[in-house]
C-alpha cells in the first residue's frame, strides 16, 4: 500500500519544531487519500528517531537512514537518501515543511524520480489537489498533481503544528548509498538571537529603509523584547546591511503570520506584503500617508518613527508594569 512520507529535520537529537506544520499537512493528505502517514529521519545518528516515535504524531512508522554523509545537510546526499527511502517504503506522496532545507533537496529528489512537486502548499483540497500562492500572493492556484509519486512542501504559517498522537514504530532503512558529489559544507554562520524564531513568533516587529541605519533598529528591538517577539525587516533594510539577511520578511524571505505584525518605515511593496499579509493584526507606522502598507493595516499611524517609537516603548512598558 502506498504511503505519505514526511521528511523531518533534527538538531541535537531533537525534532526541529518548524517540521510540525509539515506533518499536519501530510496528515491531511494521507487522510484524504486514505493511506497511512510515515516519517523519515535522516542523519549521522538516528537517536532523534526515538523521541519522534515516542510523540508519534499519528504516523505508522518512523524510518531512519543513518549515514555520516547526511550531516551536515547537503541537498546532494539528502536527495539520494530520499529517493532510496521513497522506493523502499513505497511512498506515493513525499513532503514536509517548506524550510530552506527541504526547498533545496526535495525538488532534486523529485526530478530524479520524474515526479511533480507542489511548492508552498497553503491548503489541501483533496488527495491530489493543493492550493498554493503565486505572483507574490496576489493569486491562489489550485494545482492538481498526477503520477505515481508526487511531492509537496507546505507553508509553515498555514498549518497548525501536528500534535503528538499514537506511538509509531521505528525501522531502519539500510543499504543506501549517498553521495555528496564532492561538495563540502565549510560552515554555517548562524544568526545568534535569544528571541523566538521569526516564523514561530507570536509578535513580529519589522523595520524598513526609513530606519536609515542599523543602530536605529535599537528602538525596534526594545519594542520587540517588551512584546516577547521576533525582529523582522524589509529587503531594503537587509540589503543595506542594517540587520542580517535572514530577518527579511517577504516573497523571498520569511513568510510570517503572527498574531501581531508591526511594520515601521516600510512602504509595503507587494513582495513584502507576500510575507506578512496573513498576520492576524497588522499595525503600520509610516510618515507617508499614501504608503501602500496602510492598505493592509488594521491600524495605521502616520508618524515619523523617531517621534512615535520611543513613546510606543514607554506606553507598552507602562502597561506591562
Amino acid at each position, binding site marked *: 500500500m502506498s504511503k505519505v512520507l514526511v521528511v523531518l529535520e533534527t538538531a541535537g537529537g531533537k525534532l526541529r519544531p518548524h517540521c510540525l506544520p509539515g506533518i499536519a499537512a501530510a496528515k491531511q493528505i494521507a487522510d484524504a487519500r486514505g493511506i497511512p502517514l510515515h516519517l523519515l529521519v535522516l542523519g549521522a545518528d538516528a537517536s532523534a528517531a526515538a523521541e519522534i516515535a515516542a510523540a508519534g504524531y499519528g504516523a505508522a512508522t518512523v524510518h531512519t537512514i543513518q549515514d555520516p554523509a547526511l550531516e551536515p545537510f547537503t*541537498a*546532494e546526499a539528502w536527495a539520494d537518501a530520499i529517493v532510496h527511502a521513497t522506493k523502499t517504503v513505497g511512498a506515493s506522496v513525499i513532503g514536509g515543511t517548506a524550510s*530552506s532545507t527541504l*526547498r*533545496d533537496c526535495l*525538488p*532534486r*529528489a*523529485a*526530478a*530524479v524520480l520524474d*515526479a*511533480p*512537486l507542489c*511548492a*508552498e502548499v497553503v491548503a489541501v483540497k483533496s488527495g491530489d489537489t493543493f492550493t*498554493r500562492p*503565486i*505572483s*507574490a500572493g*496576489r*493569486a*491562489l492556484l*489550485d*494545482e*492538481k498533481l*498526477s*503520477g505515481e509519486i*508526487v511531492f509537496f512542501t507546505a507553508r509553515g504559517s498555514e498549518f497548525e503544528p501536528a500534535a503528538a498522537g499514537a506511538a509509531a514504530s521505528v525501522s531502519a532503512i539500510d543499504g543506501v548509498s549517498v553521495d555528496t*558529489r564532492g*561538495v563540502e559544507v*565549510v560552515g*554555517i*554562520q548562524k*544568526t545568534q538571537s535569544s528571541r523566538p524564531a521569526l516564523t514561530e513568533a507570536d509578535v513580529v516587529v519589522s523595520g524598513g529603509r526609513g530606519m536609515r541605519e542599523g543602530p536605529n533598529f535599537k528602538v525596534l528591538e526594545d519594542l520587540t523584547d517588551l*512584546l516577547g517577539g521576533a525582529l523582522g525587516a524589509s529587503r531594503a533594510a537587509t*540589503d543595506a546591511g542594517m540587520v*542580517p*539577511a*535572514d530577518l527579511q520578511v517577504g516573497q*523571498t524571505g*520569511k513568510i510570517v503570520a503572527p*498574531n*501581531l505584525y508591526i511594520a515601521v518605515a516600510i512602504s509595503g511593496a507587494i513582495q513584502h506584503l507576500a510575507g506578512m499579509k496573513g498576520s*492576524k*493584526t*497588522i*499595525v503600520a507606522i509610516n510618515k507617508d500617508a499614501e504608503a501602500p502598507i*496602510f492598505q493592509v*493595516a*488594521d*491600524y*495605521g*499611524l502616520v508618524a515619523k518613527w523617531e517621534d*512615535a517609537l520611543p*513613546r*510606543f516603548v514607554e*506606553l*507598552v512598558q507602562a*502597561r506591562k508594569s
Partner: protein
Amino acid sequence: MTKILVTVKRIPDPDESLKFAGSELDLSSVKWVPNAFDEYAVETALRLAEDVNNKKSKLAEIIVLSICPQKQRQHMTQFLAMGADRGVIVDADDSELDTAAISKIIAKVAQDEGVDMVITGKLSQDNEGNQVGQRVAGLLGWPQACFAAEIDWDQSGNTLSVHREVDDGVEVKKLPLPAVVSVDLRVVLPTSVRNGVNPADHKFTDGPRLASLRGITMAKRKKVDVKTPSDLGVTNAGGESTVAVNKPPGRMAGQMIGSIEELVEKLATEAKVL
C-alpha cells in the same frame, strides 16, 4: 573556455495588478518583463566572466537560454544587450509545460552545450516554483548551490564557494564544477561575486547593469539558436494541472489612528494583542 548557461524567463510585469477572468488569470493584455532573479543570474555570470582591468580578456562564454514563444523574445534581447554572448530559445509556450519538462529541456541544453555552470534564478516571480535549478542539478547528477548570495570562483581549483541564504543564517558551501547555482537577491550587491582575477576590493555597481546603447546595437548581431522541445527529446508529462486560479480574500479595511497613545489603547482593548 569556461561556459556558463544562464536560464531566463519572461513574466507578467509584477508591478501591474493581476486581472482575473472567472477562475483563471487574464494574461491577454499584460506587459511581459524579465524575471528579476534571472536579471540577477545574468549579472552574476557577467561578473564571473569579467576581467575589469583587461576588457579584452573574457573568462567565460555566457549563453542565455529561455523556453518561450519564439516571437516573444524581448527579454532575451535585453540580456544579450547586457552582455551575454549568445542565446538559445526553445520555442514553446512555457505556461503549458510542467516544471519537470522545463527542467529536462534545460538539462539537455546544458549537456549538449557542454557547459561548466548553470546559473538560474532562485524563483520565477509569477509561478514561484523555486525548483527548476534543483531539478536541473538532480537530472544532471551535478552538485548544486541554491539561494546564492555570494560566489567565489576559484579558477585554478575549478570550484565555487557559495554563501547560501538559509533559514537561520548563511551556509558556505564549496562545490566542484560542473555545478548548478540558483541566485538570491543579494548576489547583486557590489562585492558579492568574486572571480579571483578582479582585485578583491573591486566594487561593481549595485544591482543588475543596464544595457548600454552599444550593447543594444550589438545584441541584434548576436547568435540566437532556436530549437523545439521535441528537438531535445522532451515531452510534457502532464504531472501538473491548473484546476483554478482565484483571488485571495482581501483584508477588511483598517482604521487610521491619530496618535500613538490612541494606537496603544486600541491594541490593548480592541485588538487585545498587548
